[in-house]
């Protein structure tokens, strides 16, 4: 796990229902996360949702993708 992963990463998803399902999947895999409004970005231009993930973002992405949750982008959380 990289230092940045401790700070948290926003994994952008397509909807709030995908975010809620994703959070549940990450919980089951012991990856802490929370459902957040997506920060300003180019991938989802408005009204986006994300998972703020604290931990291994690559593993988190793998789990989400494996469960048909499309990832629109990743944004590191700024301090």
């Amino acid at each position, binding site marked *: 796990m990289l230092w940045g992963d401790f700070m948290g990463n926003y994994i952008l998803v*397509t*909807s*709030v*229902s995908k975010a809620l*399902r994703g959070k549940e999947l990450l919980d089951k895999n012991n990856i802490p996360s929370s459902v957040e409004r997506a920060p300003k970005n180019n991938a989802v*231009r*408005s*009204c986006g*949702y994300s998972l703020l993930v604290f931990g291994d973002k690559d593993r988190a992405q793998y789990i989400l993708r494996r469960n048909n949750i*499309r990832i629109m982008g990743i944004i590191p959380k700024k301090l």
Partner: protein
Amino acid sequence: MIYLDNGATTFPKPTAVKQKITDSFNRYSANPGRSGHKLSLIASEEIYECRKSIKKLFNAQSEDSVIFTMNCTMSLNTVIFGFLREGDHVIISSLEHNAVVRPLEYLKDKGVSYSVFDYSSDDDEVIDNVRAVITPRTRLCVCTHASNVFGFRLPIERIAALCRFYGIKVCIDAAQSAGVLPIDILASGFDFVCTSGHKSLYGPMGTGILVIGDTELKPLLFGGTGTDSANPHQPEEPPERFESGTANLNGIAGLRAGVDFVRRRGTDNIYRHELALAGYLHSELMKIPQIILYNNIEYGKTAPVLSFNIDNVYSEEAVRMLDKYGVCVRGGLHCAPLAHRFMNTIDSGTVRAVPSVFTAKSEIDRFISVIKNILPKLLDNGKKV
């Protein structure tokens, strides 16, 4: 009052349903999936939890495959209008509701045709009847799980297997069966399951469910989904693709409590209770010579729905008289003229009595006693068919 109109909507609802609706109004009645604040997120979580409960009840593919609609009619319309295109042929059973027949009649002008296969109490015969109406252009089979008028149960698992063999998609109308008869979407390979939330799932009116598989479907409604708003195109992924506009949060919260109530009680336990009452009513009505019965009540073969007539008295006249004595049942055609034509009751309609999980045997006894009471008056004064 004796309420036996549970085929139209169940009444009363479980206390948990009423509490949940009130609780949602009092605590988190924000717009789900829209504003992004905490309350909105709690509202979204409530809807997601309801998707989870429905997924478990029907063994659906995923939470995302559970779509909320206003009612079963809207769910069926979403499938019929979203899947069919010019030149397609559809097969339906002889027991279908107007929610199926009317959209298909409308689509006749758009180059969609349909054929009807007859119900039979012999499952093998039903399968033969289905096979006989399949054409090379048949793309969809819409079939009720159980008749909303006569309770007849169709062998939907076998019908789905046959249709799969011919590459035909299968849409099940489970309005009268969800919560009473088992539905296993993954095991049965249904492509679409449509049902209402306010009948045997004990949710409030204004809630409907559509469960979809992998089949591509156009949405019925287009508009705001609370996601990717700068994009002028409708989202591609379910459930948002099919849920434009603000969701019925409070209704869905109540529906979740209803579905959980059914799961706690157990579908089979509910079925056995209701079927025992329907069977008892059937056996008592059989003792009255002027009563005409149309269906047997048999475990596994019928839903707990009983249709009858009193001699040749018009069914709605009988229902009016029963209402005066505090009995709520439904007469007429039950929005299913196809089923009535099939059973030769199109002129009279039938009186339909459907118990719920809350119906007691004493209510059935009172119902029978009211029928015996009004019988002479009805036979003397009732409008005849």
